[in-house]
């Protein structure tokens, strides 16, 4: 950054406020989960890990977490082939009506989440599959699919047609060319996209809320339902699970592809 002292001060003032705003809930939830008291108070009444023990024993929370993991897994497994193929198709080939297809594939972003959620609730309801977990996974996949396609197309600049022609020249048949040339080229995008899909599905709240019934609640819905009553530290402890998952996802993202890809101009 270049410029005068006053510029540095002004920019940093805004950034500092933004940083506090961004981090305060995370830090507070982390702190509250280690309280020794039965209520969350300030200043905290000593340190303990007893609430972590409490959530380990709470089978409803554990099952909700497992259900969330299943939903995320379904979402990711479905989105990887679907998004990768669509991304490669859009980036590599001349497609007729490309603009229209792009706009169509962006529908999950332009339709408000409540609209998508209610629509899929009616669709799955008419199919009679509400209350199972796979519709929730599919729904999470649909609403976040543009992220996957975007991640793949963003890494498509690595696609080199000459390489594929060279491979073909050496006698590689189509499938081999796809597996050994095309796919590795977009692999960073696929990794970014699938991490995003997994973590966003793990956190997805509104669509889960609309698609689950009392026996199939996912963890965000479970937390939301418990928030209504009194604020107890066990919710903070279970929330830390999400913070840990987010931390793992960020670390993986940084190690595998580097967080800087989000700053690249296209």
């Amino acid at each position: 950054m270049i410029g005068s002292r006053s510029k540095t001060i002004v920019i940093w003032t805004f950034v500092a406020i933004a940083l506090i705003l961004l981090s305060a809930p995370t830090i507070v939830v982390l702190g509250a989960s280690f309280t020794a008291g039965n209520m969350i108070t300030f200043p905290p009444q000593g340190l303990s890990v007893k609430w972590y023990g409490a959530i380990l024993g709470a089978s409803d929370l554990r099952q909700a977490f497992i259900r969330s993991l299943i939903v995320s897994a379904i979402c990711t497994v479905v989105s990887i082939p679907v998004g990768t193929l669509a991304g490669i198709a859009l980036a590599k080939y001349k497609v007729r009506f490309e603009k229209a297809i792009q706009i169509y594939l962006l529908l999950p972003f332009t339709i408000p989440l409540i609209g998508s959620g209610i629509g899929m609730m009616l669709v799955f309801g008419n199919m009679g599959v509400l209350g199972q977990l796979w519709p929730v996974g599919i729904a999470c996949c649909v609403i976040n699919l543009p992220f996957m396609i975007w991640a793949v197309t963003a890494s498509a600049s690595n696609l080199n047609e000459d390489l594929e022609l060279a491979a073909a020249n050496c006698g590689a048949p189509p499938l081999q060319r796809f597996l050994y040339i095309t796919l590795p080229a977009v692999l960073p995008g696929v990794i970014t996209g699938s991490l995003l899909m997994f973590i966003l599905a793990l956190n997805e709240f509104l669509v889960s809320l609309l698609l689950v019934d009392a026996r199939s609640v996912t963890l965000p819905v479970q937390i939301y339902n418990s928030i209504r009553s009194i604020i107890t530290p066990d919710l903070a402890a279970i929330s830390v699970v999400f913070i840990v998952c987010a931390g793992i996802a960020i670390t993986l993202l940084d190690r595998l592809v580097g967080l800087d890809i989000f700053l690249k101009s296209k």
Partner: protein
Amino acid sequence: MRNSRVAYPLTWRVMDMLENVCARIWPASLHRLLPYLMLLPAVVLVGLLVLGLFQIGDASLRVLDTSTFLFSEDYSLENYRQAITSGFFAVVASRSLMGSVIVTVITLLFALPYAYLMVRTQSSGLRKFLLVALFLPFFIGQVVRAYGWLIILGNQGMVNEALGLVGVPPVRLLYNYPAVLFGLIQYMLPFAVLMLAPALTAIPEELESAAGSLGANWVRTFRHIVLPLARPGLVGAGLVVMTLSLTDFAIPAILGGGSQDFIANAIYDQFFRTSNQGLGAALSLMLVAVGSIMVGVVFAVFGAGTLAMTGGRK
């Protein structure tokens, strides 16, 4: 036997078999259709949404008979009339619209310096720190973040306890309009910064140096160089923030405590509290229409390249 296997390994045999299967299923003569085949699964998945919209449309035209709690067989526009003329929904709609405008302005005000510092800083450590601070809340989800604000702002929350220590009586910080807007701004910041950052990266730093060497101070450089060049990013980020906050559910529900409902909460209540599916469906479709019109107007005025997501190529 053994020799032949060495000469032609098993993996090659498997690959040959797969190639044959592929060629059988999709002969080379259909090569031109290949990209459409690759797009098909995505089109089908998104088709679920379109199907959902049609079902909402169908439901919105059926009127609830309050005596039998059955929906009418024939279509009418009664639900839409009710939604438009009802004072309650007008209040909710104007509350959401005004809220989303305020949230957009304040979010952009903070997101721009954040993205600017993140893109321009020389220190890669600082850049990584800013990125992590951005992604952590983005990846944690709304419910947990709103829960954090409950701990901080609640009646027995940290702020009030701290005020109590210096003798100030508790202030009601939650369950009001500012609390909802505050929560929304926090929720939207990562989206805005992530959409602004590529736009700022695209501005060459030399332009700013040039303006500086011609005598412009940093405020003028910012106004006449950075802001105009970042306009596509600002418009895109503003659009995303506005539609997302207009249609948000969790933050108004948790931080508003039922008294500060936004449109999405009103729709949810129609489906799950009053069980008037038709009216809820009509409201949903109207919200979808408002969202699409907003996107359409921005596309028409600023060009379709605004949403960085569409591009990807070049």
